[in-house]
């Protein structure tokens, strides 16, 4: 079913057995992190009629700097109830990487099921300033470049290279938010013509308001299954057939910001080109970044991109990548797609990228 990967190994089939996400909102000032996660975890188990006792491993993704205190993931564990003690781990990364860690453990063949979850509250502080702390602490962060301005640098480079126009950005935003009308979990959904969007003010030129992601609070969870459990928990499992992630250098001046070689490399290792793709869920927080990732993935115009509305409709940081995988799997489960790709990103201007290829039966 799946191709051998770079080391000549055939991956063990692992399925996305269940997916759940919270309502994505601008600010959830009613619930704390535990209260935000509990219903999501109840739903991800409830979907397939299992409990926490049915999973062998738990892995989560979150960021202390978003929550404003050290060890934010520790209390979040109370939403699961890790008693008796569980084999459990945490990445200070988007939940898509937590999913990768769980997938790695499942590859060894000693366990058959894992819970992965992530949560992010982008609303508690000034997100634009917080993300500045991701930059080189000696030479870049002290200048306090904000994350929108860095994205605008990338968008400018894209326009100057002749690869895209501002109207292309607006078209992506219009399509995303129109598709989001069909997504009850989406935060921003509307049906506005491109001409109307091009009347928006610039936030940072050349990025107008519509080309930016919303600020979102949200959480998501996935159950992975292998072996007999994958069959027990789904009539037609959605399989992960390729999975890889790659890093680029940090210095923006050393990168061609109009391309994404790390996405291309991850897609190659994941065997993306081994068959046709029907749906792509791309974690491109800024409209112009979709163009870069789409090109790196080698997708043609027949591929439906971000039918969920994507991160322009809801961008819960630390969960938005994991949600892409869940949404792509949902399209296969529903029969709308046979083969899909999900993408997640981390860092300024798409520095680190993950590609997950999914297939139905």
């Amino acid at each position, binding site marked *: 079913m799946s191709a051998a990967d770079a080391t000549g190994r055939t991956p063990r089939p692992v399925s996305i057995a269940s997916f759940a996400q919270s309502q994505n909102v601008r600010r959830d000032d009613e619930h704390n992190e535990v209260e935000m996660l509990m219903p999501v975890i109840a739903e991800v188990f409830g979907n397939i009629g299992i409990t926490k006792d049915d999973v062998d491993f738990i892995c989560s993704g979150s960021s*202390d700097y978003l929550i404003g205190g050290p060890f934010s993931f520790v209390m979040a564990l109370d939403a699961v109830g890790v008693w008796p003690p569980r084999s459990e781990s945490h990445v200070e990364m988007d939940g898509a990487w937590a999913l990768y860690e769980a997938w790695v453990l499942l590859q060894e063949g000693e366990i058959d099921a894992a819970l992965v979850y992530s949560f992010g509250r982008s609303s508690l502080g000034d997100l634009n300033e917080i993300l500045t702390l991701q930059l080189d602490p000696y030479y870049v962060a002290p200048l306090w470049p904000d994350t929108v301005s860095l994205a605008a640098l990338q968008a400018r480079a894209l326009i100057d290279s002749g690869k895209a126009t501002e109207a292309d950005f607006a078209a992506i935003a219009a399509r995303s938010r129109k598709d989001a009308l069909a997504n009850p979990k989406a935060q921003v959904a509307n049906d506005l013509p491109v001409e109307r969007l091009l009347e928006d003010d610039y936030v940072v030129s050349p990025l107008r308001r519509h080309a930016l992601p919303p600020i979102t609070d949200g959480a998501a969870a996935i159950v992975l299954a292998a072996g007999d459990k994958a069959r027990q928990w789904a009539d037609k499992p959605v399989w992960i057939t390729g999975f890889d992630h790659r890093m680029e250098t940090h210095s923006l001046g050393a990168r061609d910001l109009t391309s994404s070689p790390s996405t291309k490399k991850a897609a190659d290792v994941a065997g993306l080109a081994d068959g046709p793709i029907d749906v792509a869920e791309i974690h491109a927080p800024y409209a112009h970044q979709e163009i870069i990732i789409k090109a790196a993935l080698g997708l043609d115009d027949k591929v439906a991109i971000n039918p969920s509305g994507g991160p322009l409709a809801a961008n819960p940081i630390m969960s938005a990548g994991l949600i892409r995988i869940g949404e792509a799997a949902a399209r296969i489960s529903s029969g709308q797609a046979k083969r899909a790709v999900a993408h997640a990103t981390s860092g300024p201007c798409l520095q680190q990228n993950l590609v997950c290829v999914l297939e139905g039966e």
Partner: protein
Amino acid sequence: MAERCAVIGVGQTHHKSKREDVSIAGLVREAAKMALEDADLTWADIDAVVIGKAPDMFEGNMMPELYLAPALGAVGKPMFRVHTAGSVGGSTALVAAHLVKSGIHKRVLTVAYEKQSDSDAMWALSVPQPFAAPLLAGAGGYFAPHIRAYMRRSGAPEYIGRMVAVKDRKNAMRNPYAHLHLADIDMKMVEDSMMLWDPLRYLEACPSSDGAAAMVLSSEDAVSGHYPPAWIHGTAMRSEPTMFAGRDQINPQAGRDCSADVYAQAGITNPREQFDVAEVYVPFSWYEPMWLENLGFCELGDGWKLTESGATAFDGDIPWNASGGVLSSNPIGASGMLRFLEVAMQVRGQAGEHQVDGAKLALGQAYGGGSQFFSMWVVGSDKP
């Protein structure tokens, strides 16, 4: 189905209260280069990099793997960032081991660090939270009441803590990389040191260090390096909630379950007999007797007797923390990895002056949070 995995290279920095001579990138690179040289490899030979550290607030650098990628030769490769509180150095090594055991990669570089002097770790641990009383005063304030509870429960005499403090600092005199080199350390010196969090004195607590640790892990067909490999015989992680009714913070279930798991994988039925050496996360002196019991090296309540008998000393039958341990060097994020690394050095026979003669099988343990996150591995000179 899992592949065999071995440690084929180790590296660590000189740990100090302030490493003003290097940036964060320079610090991690120092350890990583040393591990590569030990493995007789170059950056190009590495398939993936796994990095771990404690809270980002310790240095004020969010998701630092992004900034550190080029310094660690990770450009174009998979790079992964782990954070599981104080156990992170251990769990980072375990994630790297799984990348090899699963057959996904042949050679993985794993690195952990803390540059505590770049920010105020005490502040980062005690960030004022609006719904909690501002009483904690760092990790010592959290753990001291549990130490008092252990003393009460076990009936241990109060000088046991001082014995551990002296033993580990004496061991550190044999380790050129250790932060604290207290040549004159003795019971009196510990007793005369300032009482910080009664019953914990200054010299019964770990220092605050800048430092990094690195290892190269490889699959069986990719073994290289200047010393024989340290084969991984077992790996395990366990977590339990921070606070719940009836929680035993002195002898946490997660620690007992974690050791039972890793012992079963490695065929350990009598840890005191079978292990030649152990490196265990002891940031405050009293955690040696507590973990001796938790890890099954003795009966419940007898941990302090083992310490008192000298069994855990460098010349005892089961030396604990021959390197000087966390009490002598504490670059928080790296402290757990140093435990895992030191036991690899022991079974590879490369520990120099703190080499335990004939060490063939060893336990590395790290814990974190409110004694709720545990990671462990067993390494040996023989193949599993």
